[in-house]
């Protein structure tokens, strides 16, 4: 491999005189401790590299060794259930409490293997070589690396092997032989190949009402969560990690707090996956580059994470990549770019910020894998805009790439109204594609007597639109009330304000701390949406019969509706039926009583 010697160093960036060929984006090792770095520029005989670890003590003359390969990671069965740094080196089991520079990649781990190929078979890149089972009993597939192809000449029988041991040997087209192990190397900045993109007509179910029912995201979709500090980005991502319908969760803490990572590590092994009942940690990979860890590695961590996500996707799995926060990634990009004197553009960010953001989100997709199965990577990423102002570059560039935009609102967060997603600033472009899926959920429920059968499949679309219109009207009326006073609004408009508040309190608000409400499945969401809609219709009818807004607001049922998220359990269809009955009888009593009063 080539060698270079440092001629200049400052912070995480160095320049070195090369004594042999280097490639752009090649991984390098610096100095005695072998600090990991990456070539980011070439100038004549000089290379410029960024170093992913603390550079204290480096000096001119120190050796920089090329690795011959681009910056990349080892992908294999050892990833699930563990925590890694931004370059996918394990964080557990280090000698001290601190992250010391110069950590090395780990030794090999053993797994049991069962082949699915035979000698003589032709193996294409991405094909399934065999099955691997880890200590927790989880089965994963072992793939031929996407960049390999050839005839299987030998393959080991079922047994326990190290993840770096050659399992099989391929004779490639040019007659060379290539060994394949359980794990393989892949450069992080290069998307893993697929057979084809697939349209997505199925949602990633998150268990959050405001997301699934109002601003849904498709499997293979992309969603951004912008919000000022303390508005609930991390809590929302953690809630998704706990209960979303993906098979594998890749959680990357990029430039955020150490305690949050510790929290996930503390909680996930003890919590059960709501669908499989297994510990959540078993389906999770955590990548942590906290805010006090070296900046340059923050930039790489996002790529490591999406590469890991693609690796599981290639096994035919649905993967959710949760990234907190992409602003820190962009800032790391800016910091390194400034160090070697690039001309800054908007907000000090390098001019290629927008194309980097685009490239990243482009890796989210639902696909047919090289092995012919269906897999997806859904990207859900937070943004931390300075002063919570969404017009800044990272938010505005991201907005052009994502299809779901979940804007967090400071006002709601301050009132401890969670999730603090602002219903008027958020949107979902996937909603249209998912209407049919949701239509089926509604149709499969005991059909609503008030809805004609041929409209069941439209019900969700209608209710959703109704809720959004109501919230929009609320904003308009509140502006008006600020001029003329609330009491001057006509009764009909006061009822709109009241019903919109009911949608907020009874449907959009969802407590992450309530055992019942932290997850809300599609059917319960549908039942809740129906209950509220039924109330609104009844209230409008009552108003038309001359019943006052105050009388409606004072109804017992209102409190029941506002608390149904916490009070009615996931599968308790009976409770919703009862709710509906009490609603009817309370309304008819109210109408009767008012009629009687009027007569008297």
């Amino acid at each position, binding site marked *: 491999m080539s060698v270079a010697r440092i001629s*200049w160093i400052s912070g995480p960036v160095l320049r070195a005189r090369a004594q042999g060929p280097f490639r752009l984006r090649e991984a390098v090792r610096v100095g005695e401790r072998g600090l990991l770095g990456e070539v980011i520029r070439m100038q004549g005989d000089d290379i410029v590299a960024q170093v992913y670890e603390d550079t*204290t003590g480096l*000096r001119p003359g120190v050796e920089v060794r090329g690795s011959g390969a681009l910056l990349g990671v080892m992908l294999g069965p050892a990833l699930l259930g563990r*925590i890694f740094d931004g370059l996918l080196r394990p964080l557990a089991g280090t000698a001290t*409490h601190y992250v010391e520079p110069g950590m090395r990649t780990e030794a090999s781990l053993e797994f049991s293997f069962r082949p699915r190929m035979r000698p003589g078979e032709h193996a294409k890149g991405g094909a399934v070589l065999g099955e691997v089972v880890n200590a927790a009993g989880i089965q994963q597939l072992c793939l031929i690396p996407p960049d390999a192809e050839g005839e299987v000449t030998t393959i080991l029988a079922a047994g326990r092997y190290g993840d770096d041991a050659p399992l099989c040997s391929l004779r490639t087209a040019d007659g060379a032989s290539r060994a394949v192990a359980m794990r393989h190397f892949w450069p992080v900045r290069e998307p893993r190949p697929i057979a084809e993109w697939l349209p997505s007509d199925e949602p990633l179910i998150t268990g959050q009402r405001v997301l699934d029912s109002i601003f849904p995201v498709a499997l293979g979709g992309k969603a951004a969560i912008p919000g000022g500090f303390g508005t609930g980005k991390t809590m929302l991502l953690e809630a998704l990690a706990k209960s979303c319908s993906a098979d594998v969760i890749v959680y990357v803490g990029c430039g955020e707090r*150490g305690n949050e990572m510790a929290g996930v590590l503390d909680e996930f092994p003890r919590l059960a996956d709501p669908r499989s009942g297994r510990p959540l940690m078993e389906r999770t990979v955590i990548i942590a580059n906290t805010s006090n860890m070296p900046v340059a590695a923050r930039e790489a961590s996002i790529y490591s994470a999406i590469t890991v996500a693609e690796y599981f996707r290639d096994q035919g799995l649905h993967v959710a990549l949760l990234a907190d926060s992409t602003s820190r990634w962009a800032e790391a990009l800016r910091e390194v770019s400034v160090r070697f004197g690039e001309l800054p553009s908007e907000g000090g960010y390098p001019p290629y910020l927008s194309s980097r953001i685009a490239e990243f989100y482009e890796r989210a997709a639902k696909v047919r894998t090289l092995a012919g199965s269906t897999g997806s990577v859904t990207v859900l990423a937070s943004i931390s805009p300075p002063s919570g102002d969404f017009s800044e570059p990272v938010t505005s560039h991201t907005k052009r790439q994502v299809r779901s935009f979940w804007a967090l609102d400071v006002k709601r967060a*301050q009132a*401890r109204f969670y999730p603090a997603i602002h219903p008027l600033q958020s949107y979902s472009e996937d909603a249209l594609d998912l209407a049919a899926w949701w239509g089926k959920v509604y149709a499969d429920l005991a059909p609503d007597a008030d809805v004609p059968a041929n409209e069941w499949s439209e019900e969700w679309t209608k209710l959703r639109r109704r809720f959004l219109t109501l919230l929009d009207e609320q904003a308009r009326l509140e502006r008006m009330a600020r001029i003329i*006073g609330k009491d001057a609004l006509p009764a009909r408009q006061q009822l709109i304000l009241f019903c919109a508040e009911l949608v907020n309190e009874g449907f959009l608000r969802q407590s992450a701390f309530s055992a019942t409400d932290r997850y809300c499945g599609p059917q319960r969401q549908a039942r809740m949406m129906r209950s509220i809609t039924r109330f609104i219709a009844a209230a409008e009818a009552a108003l038309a019969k001359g019943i006052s807004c105050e009388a409606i607001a004072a109804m017992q049922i209102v409190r029941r509706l506002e608390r149904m998220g916490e009070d009615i359990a996931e599968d308790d269809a009976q409770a919703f039926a009862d709710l509906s009955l009490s609603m009817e009888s309370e309304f008819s009593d109210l109408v009767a009583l008012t009629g009687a009063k009027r007569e008297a």
Partner: protein
Amino acid sequence: MRPRLLVTGAATRIDGPLLFMRRTLNVGLNHAVSVQGGDGKIRLGRIAALDDEFLTIELLEASAGLALADTVVSFYLEPLHFGLSPGILGRVFDGVGRVLDGGPPVAIHHNFRIDGLPLNPVARARPHDFIETGISAVDLMNSLVRGQKLPIFSGGGLPHDRLAVQIANHARLRGAESRDFAIVFAGIGVPHASADYFRRSFEASGVLERAALFLNLASDSSTQRLLTPRFALTAAEYLAFVEGKHVLVILTDMTNYCEALREVSGAKGDVPGRKGFPGYLYSDLATLYERAGCVHGLPGTLTQLSILTMPSDDIGHPIPDLTGYITEGQIVLSRELDRAGIYPPIGVLPSLSRLMKDGIGRGSTHADHPSLSSQLYAAYARAIQARVLASVVGEEGLLDIDRKYLAFGTSFEQDLVQQTAARTLEDSMAIGWGLLRGLPISELARLTDAQIAQYIET
């Protein structure tokens, strides 16, 4: 730390805090230096960049008075370290860890690098021990836990010092008499009077012998301010993770720290970002604030209570904004409440404690604590909305229910936020329930039927 190598007359250029010199020695990046001018003064610095011929020293103290010819640079061949032992308690240091109280030098048992290494997230234990501060707006609404970093966002002229002292003096675990606590105080560019207020208050409450004070006064070098919190935090980490103490660190005023960073970065020619602060302000602050927490298997903890004054009371200013993105919440002081004569003037809505959820509720404080605080938040937010509306259209323009909220808001501030003596959490909770009784039950959607039966309908 003892300098190992001395070089005289190699300096070629001095530019603000940067000293350029010929590289005659084989030294490494970030290694410490001390620079002595013809005036005899010693200034600390570090090596910021190196190439084949030259090296750049970033001076961490004022460069005024230096000359090219007679400047002596001593190289330590390692990064800046701080020598520590239990003897630091009860002592006063300057901003770079030199004894200032006229007493004997401190014995050195350990030498720690002042800019520490990042704590491995795997080694962190989740903080969850509730600390009672005696202040309702904190204990009930924004609970502090051991190992948390919870800054006070204040403004010029607001009583943040008094509040910090009160918390430091009162903070205790419920039901436990803790003797293993220590206080580390770092005055960063603070006026003498303010530093003295802290010292006297600690003396009066008898905790001075458990405190280590680091003072960089307003009159001291501003570049030195970049080092003061690092020396203080190194001392705190030592006390917490080697000596096993529960350490409360008060860093004040972080705004001065950030101003110093801006000054130095400007002089270095860094590309200025928002309001002239360098783009790396976030990462730089993180290397300070993240030095808090609990570690698996170690008895001590490190809790940070930093104070910062928000320029023009603007919470969107880069200093509070970036701080809020790193710390685990914030206590925001409100000028409006202060003007209304309410002490402590804690603006409850913009305040937040993120670790509260891990420290309260069944098994730690009280099973109904989370619901109570959540309901109080919801109601107070409605009250503020009603108040805004009333200020535009007048109280007559409100609905009945909004008028009830107006009254709730006033009592919330006067009866709960305002206090003259410390309260137990039970007292604070009782006041909270009392306030909620002033609202119709239909408004209390965040309380369960059982809670309503037990606390509201009595």
